[in-house]
């Protein structure tokens, strides 16, 4: 029998170097290292480094990474196969990932031969978009297109819109004058609700962590932004990274965090560089972590699992992150847009409560729009030059479709809730007269099926059965039971899934059927 034991597959010199650059060089003369502290959290960075060096993760690289980090190879294999952007199959050094998601499909995206289809790349205002990954001695990732559009807004987006450079860190200085308790009191007194989707009051979250006697506390900035149609956090990180880093410094100061992490999706190379540069310039203890292609890792507890070197499987809550988050310690997790509100709150110069909206699809002026909460959607659509719309998808794949007669909706948390919809991550995708809504619905169903972590039955199997029923309806092969099946699936996924992914996987689909009459 051939010797297949994984640990015997040797890495190449290049792979060894790439992995050593992450985990440290191997002490000479022994391969059983006495470990001082668990280093499992370096697994994903090590696999990523090996892949960026040679294009994919070979058995030798996987075996070497697991040996160096003392992770059982089966376990490391489980982690590596979780992430869509880690390839365990040989492939060329250069790979083109072509977005086939909602906004790019509206702009006629095609996948050329040899390229791989990708879910939303967060470049929706520039659709059709793609990402070229180039492995080698000088690995790099190139976002296509590379140009950037002007933004529309005058509070959070003011500096980007005017091109004004970032000045002194006045808000951080102000925070130090005030002291942690007063900073938290100011955030609590503000109307700030989390912008990552769940709309939780930020001040309460900060206070809960600050009060925890268990130490250390961690801050995690959630910059995984993978909700189809969302690109706001990318624009901030690319064009105003100091705003984010200053806000993180304030959050850490206020909540007693020893260390911070910012988890940026792999598809955002420019944002990664800009944020790293800003971290270095400000000199705070924040580590940049890079995703590897998994929407679910935007779910806060999956994100912790991912940083810790595990598969990105959401944890059951409670316990909540404020009590037991990253590495089991009290953790503040906030979205990028949430955080960049903080300096404004402390400086108190502009009290308007604004929100960022990511407008794409059939509009003349796609891009990022900052609006005061309560602005009617129709006004935003006019400003962006929307075509007469057949439908608007609000809130992303986990959001809902609106009919043309529903577009006067006020964009506020309360109005959205009253209308039974969600602003989600601020997604506004316009589907013009010629748009193919059936394809859009099928694409959303496929997205959830592909992105389910697979942990719980309602979502793992439910997203597959949902997509199958929709395909039967779309292809005229219906057996008559589809509506009942879809209704039952909606209920079990909402009620019994572990995390928000499964709980919302039927939202947009159900709204398309019920509200637009698509496939009804």
């Amino acid at each position, binding site marked *: *029998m051939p010797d*297949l*034991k*994984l640990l015997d597959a040797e890495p190449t010199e290049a792979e060894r170097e790439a992995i050593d650059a992450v985990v440290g060089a191997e002490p000479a003369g022994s391969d059983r290292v006495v470990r001082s502290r668990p280093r499992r959290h370096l697994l994903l960075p090590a696999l990523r480094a090996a892949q960026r060096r040679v294009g994919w993760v070979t*058995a030798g690289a*996987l*075996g070497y990474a*697991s040996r160096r980090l003392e992770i*059982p*190879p*089966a*376990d*490391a*294999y*489980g982690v590596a*196969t*979780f*992430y*869509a952007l880690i390839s*365990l199959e040989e492939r060329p050094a250069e790979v083109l990932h072509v977005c086939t998601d909602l906004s790019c499909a509206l702009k006629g995206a095609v996948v050329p031969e040899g390229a791989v289809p990708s879910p939303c790349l967060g470049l929706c205002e520039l659709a059709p978009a793609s990402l070229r990954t180039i492995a080698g001695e000088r690995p790099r990732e190139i976002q296509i297109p590379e140009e950037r559009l002007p933004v529309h807004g005058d509070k959070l987006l003011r500096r980007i819109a005017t091109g004004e450079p970032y000045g002194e860190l006045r808000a951080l200085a102000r925070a130090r004058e005030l002291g942690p308790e007063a900073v938290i009191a100011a955030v609590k007194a503000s109307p700030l609700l989390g912008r990552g989707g769940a709309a939780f009051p930020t001040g309460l979250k900060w206070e809960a962590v600050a009060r925890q006697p268990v130490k250390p506390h961690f801050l995690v900035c959630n910059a995984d932004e993978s909700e189809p149609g969302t690109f706001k956090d990318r624009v901030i990180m690319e064009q105003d990274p100091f705003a984010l880093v200053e806000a993180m410094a304030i959050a850490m100061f206020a909540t007693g965090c020893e260390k911070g992490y910012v988890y940026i999706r792999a598809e955002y190379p420019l944002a990664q560089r800009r944020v790293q540069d800003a971290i270095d310039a400000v000199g705070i203890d924040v580590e940049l972590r890079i995703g590897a292609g*998994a929407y679910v890792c935007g779910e806060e507890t999956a994100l912790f699992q991912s940083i810790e070197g595990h*598969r990105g499987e959401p944890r*059951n809550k*409670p316990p909540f992150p404020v009590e037991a988050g990253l590495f089991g310690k009290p953790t503040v997790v906030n979205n990028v847009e949430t955080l960049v509100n903080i300096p404004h709150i402390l400086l108190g110069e502009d009290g308007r409560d604004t929100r960022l909206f990511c407008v794409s699809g059939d509009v003349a002026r796609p891009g990022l729009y900052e609006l005061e909460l309560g602005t009617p959607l129709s006004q935003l659509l006019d400003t962006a030059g929307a075509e007469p719309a057949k439908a608007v998808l609000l809130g992303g794949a986990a959001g809902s479709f609106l009919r043309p007669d529903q577009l006067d909706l006020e964009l506020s948390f309360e109005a959205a809730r009253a209308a039974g919809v969600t602003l989600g991550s601020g997604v506004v995708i316009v589907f013009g007269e010629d748009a193919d809504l059936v394809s859009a619905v099928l694409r959303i169903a496929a997205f959830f*099926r*592909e*992105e*389910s*972590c*697979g*942990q*719980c*039955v*309602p979502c*793992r*199997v*439910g*997203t*597959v*059965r949902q997509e*199958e029923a929709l395909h039967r309806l779309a292809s005229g092969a219906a057996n008559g*039971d589809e509506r009942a*099946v879809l209704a*039952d*699936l909606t*209920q*079990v996924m*909402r*009620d*019994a*899934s*572990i995390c928000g992914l499964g*709980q919302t996987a039927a939202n947009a689909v159900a709204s398309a059927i019920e509200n637009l009459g698509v496939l009804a």
Partner: protein
Amino acid sequence: MRITIDGVTTEVDGGTILDAARQMGIDTPTLCYGDTLTPVNACRVCVVELEGARTLVPACSRRVEDGMVVHTDSERVRTSRRMVLELLGSSVDLSTAPDALAYVDRYGAEPARLGTPPAPAPRIDNDLYVRDYSKCILCYKCVEACGVDHQNTFAIAVAGRGFDARISTELDVALPDSACVYCGNCVAVCPTGALMGKTEFDLREAGNWREEEQAQVDTVCPYCGVGCTLTLHVQDDAIVKVTSPDDHDVTRGNLCIKGRFGYRYAQNR
């Protein structure tokens, strides 16, 4: 702490909703929960309705808090449990999963309306046990038993994602090439027959597995000095399977390769 379940209020000291329900004699279905394993709360067949919660909650892992009001047999609960079973039955061969089959009956689940499970796909790569992942419900029990909960061998893990998630060795190598030490503790916890001793597998293939006729005899393992209790499952005067009681304070249901599989000598008379 006080908790009200299905209209009856009781006093408990901590524990989970499942513990409280059991204490009150309420039979709650479970598949991924095991008395000797850390709850992974993945199957969701145990969900109950907790007043004030947006979604249903898993009874097996949700800790009791003072004043909780819980419903275990509401329409919402029954629908989710029935759907979980339909989803499983439509994607997994449950023919050797007695608990799951009983729940399918109890909740009137009709898996066939959602799809048909895959054909059997036994992988026979060693003489001691057979793996057939067409029967796997991904309850994670085997992974936990092989890992920190019991054996600390870590030969298997969940690989892949979504519907493609599966139990696998590194790079899917055959068991003899993996770290597996054949303790069979995964076989002992598997609730579906996806992991099955070779003797049982062969007898089933031959149509000769007659569980109702089998006698169970407890004895002490003859191999080393630890003194594990063995339960010998005997059919036609031959040992066909060896287990150890879950509530045994030394084994907690676990054995090593010798105790679990080293029974043939007893028959080579």
